Structure formats: structure tokens, C-alpha cells
């Protein structure tokens, strides 16, 4: 999460970056707010909110058929609202209250004791809470792409709400909240595991459980308006600066370097996808280049505070290749209908990023050496983080969805799917 050399109250991040000792010692000095760090984190919070609404909403909305675009926007918007409230109620506490190795306690439920003056590291504690809130918002929102065009809105709310509390909050605790993965030394700067692998795997499970879209393989399900998707991808990119550089939780050299490597990996992955597609299919497509960019953003997320520019370049290329493969060959071959490639891009990109973080981690940048600097064990540690996350996420997601399906059903009826979710579920259409 962060790699500040300033005092930190949040042990968690410190732990995960291996500077636990220093940090704890440093805490004897009275914590003080740094206005520059605070300024940057206020901005970063706004940027991460921008990623979900309107960023992700548009990225997804442009890719579906015209009759379903509003339903995608609605899902992202409603998730943004619901997760904000749930985070306040108990999510933040489950993730960041001390608790045990697996889940936080209830001490911070309803933001009990959050005062104006409370300090966390060098920023207000309330700011750390709301910054983290925007992560709890985007992660479930990422999943909706997998079951686009066919899930009931009510089921979607139940699913994402419960999922955030049972899957997202604990895993956040594992990695950033002082849980067992941070103790095991798993590196995840800004959420490759917590956010992307997590959302990707949940998407895959959900796509399989809900079944394929009607018309898949027979009708054209082509994106209705990629202009929206490009706006969305661009806002995701811009907002991701807040996501990655904001995860330094300070306005310092680490934040700046995180921004640099984010830009490089994203550009490299976008070009990689574009050139592969150009070579294999004859034309470089808009959907391709933006998909590649998102793949690059995903993959650099865990690595952002740990690798140097050249590491970022290779992570970008690797992720462009892997995500292309995930969204085309893998999906076709395995035969699930992950409508907007949540697994193909966030799942695969997240896994590639997590592993390559172990490869390219650079001691001079983030304090931890990776495989290239002789620390092969880091790759194993990274793999362990992936495995733990995938297992818990897959099992819990499946159970939550199964239960909801038994109680209220997760899939819309045939007529609603045919006429479009916009009209059927929300009583609205675009002209």
C-alpha cells in the first residue's frame, strides 16, 4: 500500500512493504498532518471515485447493446452508493480494525471514534478511510461486466453488498490490514490481488453460474458505442494515477515513481494488444487498444511502488500479451460467457502483475528485491498470495450467488433480457 518514510499509524502497509520495524519505532514521534500529503490524498480520492463513476460505468456501458447501456450505468452508480454506506457501517472495520489474521474486528464499525483530528501516518485518519472507501466501491463494480445484460438488479445489489463484506473486506485485511498475507510478505502496492484478481475471479464464477447471454454466437452482441468506452478507459487511466500513486499515501518520490511506471506499463500494454491484433486480425481496433491499456493498468497495480521504469515496460508487454490471450483464446476455448472480460483482463492481468512484481521488484525502488535481483522466493510468495485469494474468492462468491439464486433468482426473465434491461428493470431508454 505505501512506502512512506514518515511515521505511519497503519501498520498494515508498513508490514507489507517490509519496513515494519522502522515504522513502529518512528511512531514514538507525535504524528502530524502534512498538508502536501493530505492535498495529494484528497485529490487521489477524487480520482479513484472518478474511476468508477463515470469511468468504469462508461467503459462497460459502451460495450453492451444499446438496450442495456443504462442498466450498466445504474449498476455502477448504485454500487458506488451502496458500498459507501456499507463501508461506513462495517466494511472499513472488517478490513482495517485490528482483529485477527483473517478479518478485522468491529471496533471501527459506524466509524466510531473517527475524529477530525485523528491522524494516520501523515494524513487525517478520515482521509485514509475515504480513500480506501473508493477502493471498496470500484472492486465490486468491476465484477458487473461479467454478468452484464442478464442479472436482476435486486440480485446484483444483494450479491455485491454481501460480497464486499465477506470477500473484499477480509482479503483487504489479509494484505493491507495486518492480516496473514502481509505478514507473509506478499507485495501488493495498490491492489492487484485485493482488487483485480479478486474481482476477476468473482466475475468468472458469476459468469459461469448465471450462464450465457441469449443470442451469444447467433446474434450480434457488438458494442453499441465505443465512444463511451474510450471516454471510460481514458478516465480510468487518469483516475488510476490516484489509485496507484495515491497508494503511496504521500506526495513523495514513491508516489511520483508509481505514476511514472503506471504510465509506462499502460502504454506498453495498449500498444502490445494493438500490434498483436493488427498482426493476427489485420486491423488495430479501438476496443483492442483500450482493453490493452486497462490490462496494463491492472498489471502494474501491485507493482507500482516496487519496480523501475524498465520493469514497468516488461510488465506492460507481458500483460498486453496475457490479457489478449485471456479475452480471446482462453474465453473461447473454455466456453464461459464473461461478457466484458472481467476475468480475461482483471483476473489474468492481476495474476500476471502479481507474479511479475515478484520478478521485477527492485530494492532501490521499493525496498524489496525480486527474482531478477536474486530473490526468487518473492515469486513464490506472490503466488501464495494469488492462490489464497483465488480460493477464498471463488468459494465465497459461488456460495453467495447460489444462496441468492435460491431465494430471489439471479437472472432476469427472457422477455426482459430480449427487450433490454433498461426498459425492463429501470423503465427508461436512450434515444
Amino acid at each position, binding site marked *: 500500500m505505501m512506502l512512506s518514510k514518515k511515521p505511519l499509524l497503519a501498520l498494515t502497509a508498513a508490514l507489507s512493504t517490509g519496513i515494519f520495524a522502522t515504522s513502529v519505532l518512528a511512531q514514538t514521534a507525535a504524528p502530524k498532518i502534512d498538508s502536501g500529503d493530505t492535498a495529494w490524498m484528497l485529490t487521489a480520492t477524487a480520482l479513484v471515485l472518478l474511476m468508477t463513476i463515470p469511468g468504469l460505468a462508461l467503459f462497460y456501458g459502451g460495450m453492451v447493446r444499446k438496450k442495456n447501456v443504462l442498466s450498466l450505468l445504474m449498476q455502477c452508480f448504485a454500487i458506488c452508493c451502496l458500498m459507501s454506506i456499507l463501508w461506513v457501517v462495517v466494511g472499513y472495520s472488517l478490513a482495517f480494525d485490528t482483529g485477527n489474521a483473517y478479518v478485522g474486528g468491529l471496533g471501527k464499525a459506524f466509524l466510531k471514534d473517527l475524529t477530525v483530528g485523528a491522524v494516520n501516518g501523515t494524513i487525517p485518519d478520515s482521509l485514509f478511510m475515504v480513500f480506501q472507501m473508493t477502493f471498496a466501491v470500484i472492486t465490486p463494480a468491476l465484477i458487473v461486466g461479467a454478468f452484464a445484460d442478464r442479472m436482476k438488479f435486486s440480485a446484483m445489489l444483494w450479491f455485491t453488498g454481501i460480497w464486499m463484506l465477506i470477500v473484499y473486506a477480509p482479503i483487504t485485511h489479509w494484505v493491507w490490514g495486518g492480516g496473514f498475507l502481509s505478514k507473509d510478505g506478499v507485495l501488493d502496492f495498490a491492489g492487484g490481488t485485493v482488487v483485480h484478481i479478486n474481482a476477476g475471479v468473482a466475475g468468472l464464477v458469476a459468469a459461469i453460474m448465471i450462464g450465457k447471454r441469449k443470442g451469444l454466437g447467433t446474434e*450480434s*452482441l*457488438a458494442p453499441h458505442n465505443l465512444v463511451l468506452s474510450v471516454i471510460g478507459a481514458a478516465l480510468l487511466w487518469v483516475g488510476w494515477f490516484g489509485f496507484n500513486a495515491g497508494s503511496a499515501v504521500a506526495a513523495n518520490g514513491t508516489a511520483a515513481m508509481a505514476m511514472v511506471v503506471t504510465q509506462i506499463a499502460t502504454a506498453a500494454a495498449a500498444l502490445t494488444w494493438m500490434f498483436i491484433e493488427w498482426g493476427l486480425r489485420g486491423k488495430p*481496433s479501438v*476496443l483492442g487498444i483500450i482493453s490493452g491499456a486497462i490490462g496494463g493498468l491492472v498489471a502494474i497495480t501491485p507493482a507500482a511502488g516496487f519496480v523501475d521504469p524498465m520493469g514497468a515496460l516488461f510488465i506492460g508487454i507481458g500483460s498486453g500479451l496475457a490479457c489478449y490471450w485471456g479475452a*480471446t483464446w482462453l*474465453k473461447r476455448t473454455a466456453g464461459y460467457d464473461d461478457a466484458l472480460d472481467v476475468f480475461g483482463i482483471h483476473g489474468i492481468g492481476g495474476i500476471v502483475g502479481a507474479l511479475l512484481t515478484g520478478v521485477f521488484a527492485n530494492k532501490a525502488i521499493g525496498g524489496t528485491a525480486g527474482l531478477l535481483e536474486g530473490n526468487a522466493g518473492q515469486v513464490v510468495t506472490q503466488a501464495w498470495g494469488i492462490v489464497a485469494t483465488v480460493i477464498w474468492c471463488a468459494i465465497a462468491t459461488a456460495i453467495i450467488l447460489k444462496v441468492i439464486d435460491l431465494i430471489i433468482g439471479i437472472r432476469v426473465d427472457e422477455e426482459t433480457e430480449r427487450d433490454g434491461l433498461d426498459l425492463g428493470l429501470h423503465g427508461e431508454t436512450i434515444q
Partner: protein
Amino acid sequence: MKLIEAVIKPFKLDEVRTALTETGVQGLTVSEARGFGRQKGQTEIYRGAEYEISFLPKIRIEVAVSDDVAEQTIEAIRNAASTGQIGDGKIFVFDMEKAVRIRTGETDNDAL
């Protein structure tokens, strides 16, 4: 009177309109259409999914003319709309029983 309906390639619309105006036609109505026929569309690929575009964009023109100028109108459309390539489109001719100009109530040839 005849109602001549032509389905043409969109980029030919301006030429056809000019040609019709030159033959003395005073008005016409057009609408967007999509055509399926011998002409093959491109394939669009979105990530893994390929969609063959079987319906291609066309413009549908309707012109109502008096019987005596029907032939030359057809000819004018054909000349202007033709590129010699598959997909140039069709002209269909119908007999029209009656025409009314809404503004004045004039009927038949006076209404065109």
C-alpha cells in the same frame, strides 16, 4: 402516377438528388435502411468475438411521379446511383392510386 422506390448506397444520395432535380422532380423522401443481398459486409471483431455484418447501410428513396416521366426518372436514378459494383441496389416501381398535398388538398399530379 408511379411511386418509385430506390435502395442505393448512402454516398450516392447527393448525386441521385441532383440527377432527379435535373429531370424536374420537385420532391423526394429518403430514409435510412439496411440491406441484405449479394454484397458481402466486412467482419467486425471485438476482442474474441467476430460478427459478420450481413446488413449494410443503404438509403431508401421514394419519389412519386406522374406516369409520363416515370421511365426517365428511373433512368436518372440508375445512372446516378450506379458504380458497377455489387450492392448498388434496386429500383422498385409501383402504381399509385392517389396523391394529396397536405397543405393545399391538391390531388394527384398537382400534388407532386
